[in-house]
C-alpha cells in the first residue's frame, strides 16, 4: 500500500486480533511518510495498538462484524490519533485506573500494562461521545 502525501489518513478495521498487524503496518507507513523517527514511530504505533487491542478484545469480544475507524492526522505540533468506536457503551480508558509501574513489576501483574504504556507515551488522551459513537483522541507532541 503506497500512501499519497497528505495530512490525514484513515483506516477501518474489523474487530479481530489479526487486524492489529494491519493497523501497525498502516501506522508505520503514515508516520514514515511524515518523516517521524523510527523510535517515535514505534512508541506511537504501540500506543495505538494497545488502545485498539483493548477495544477489540474487551469491548467487542473479537467480533469481526464490528469495526473501528482510525484516523491519523498531522498537526503543527504533533500527531493526532482518533479511534472511533460505534459501540457507544464500550470501554473508556480514561476511566480505568491503571496500575503503577511498581504494582506491575512487584506484584507481577499482567493487566493494565497496555493502558499504562498509552498514558506514558501519549501527551493528551480524551474520550468523548459523539454521533452515537465513542471517540478516543490522543495526541503525541513533537519537538519543533
Amino acid at each position, binding site marked *: 500500500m503506497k500512501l499519497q502525501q497528505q495530512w490525514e489518513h484513515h483506516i477501518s478495521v474489523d474487530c479481530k*486480533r489479526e487486524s492489529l498487524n494491519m493497523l501497525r503496518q498502516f501506522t508505520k507507513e503514515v508516520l514514515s511518510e511524515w518523516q517521524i523517527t523510527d523510535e517515535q514511530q514505534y512508541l506511537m504505533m504501540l500506543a495505538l495498538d494497545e488502545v485498539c487491542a483493548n477495544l477489540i478484545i474487551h469491548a467487542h469480544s473479537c467480533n469481526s462484524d464490528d469495526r473501528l475507524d482510525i484516523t491519523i492526522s498531522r498537526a503543527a505540533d504533533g500527531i493526532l490519533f482518533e479511534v472511533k468506536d460505534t459501540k457507544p457503551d464500550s470501554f473508556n480508558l480514561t476511566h480505568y485506573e491503571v496500575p503503577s509501574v511498581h504494582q506491575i513489576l512487584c506484584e*507481577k501483574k499482567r493487566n493494565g500494562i497496555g493502558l499504562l504504556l498509552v498514558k506514558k507515551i501519549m501527551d493528551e488522551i480524551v474520550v468523548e461521545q459523539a454521533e452515537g459513537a465513542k471517540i478516543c483522541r490522543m495526541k503525541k507532541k513533537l519537538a519543533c
Partner: protein
Amino acid sequence: MVEVKTKVENRVTVVSVHGELDASSALILDNALEGVIAQKPAAVVVDCSALEYISSPGIGVFISRHGECEEKQISFALCNVSQKINNVFKILGLDQVVKIYATTDEATTAMGASY
C-alpha cells in the same frame, strides 16, 4: 506471527523469539516458556535479536515468567534487545528488574557462571 526456538547452551536454556509479540501471538511464547521452566533449567535466557515488535501481552509474559523463575530460583534474563524495544522496557522500568545482556554469549556466560 511469532516463532519460538529453544536450545541448551552452556547449561543455560536459550529461547529465541522471531517475529512480533502482540495480543494474537504472546500465548505462543508463554506456552514455550512454561515448558522450558517446567524442566527446571539452571537459567533461562530469551534472545530478542529477531524480535521485531512487542506490546503489553508480550511484556506481561516476560514479567510473569521472570517472577516465576525468581520463585523457583531459576535465573532469567533477556539479550540482544533492540533500542526501540528497550525504550519501551525503560518506560516501564522493566530494565531495572530483569537482567538484560548485550549479546547471547555475554548472557550465557554470565548466567552459566551465576548458578
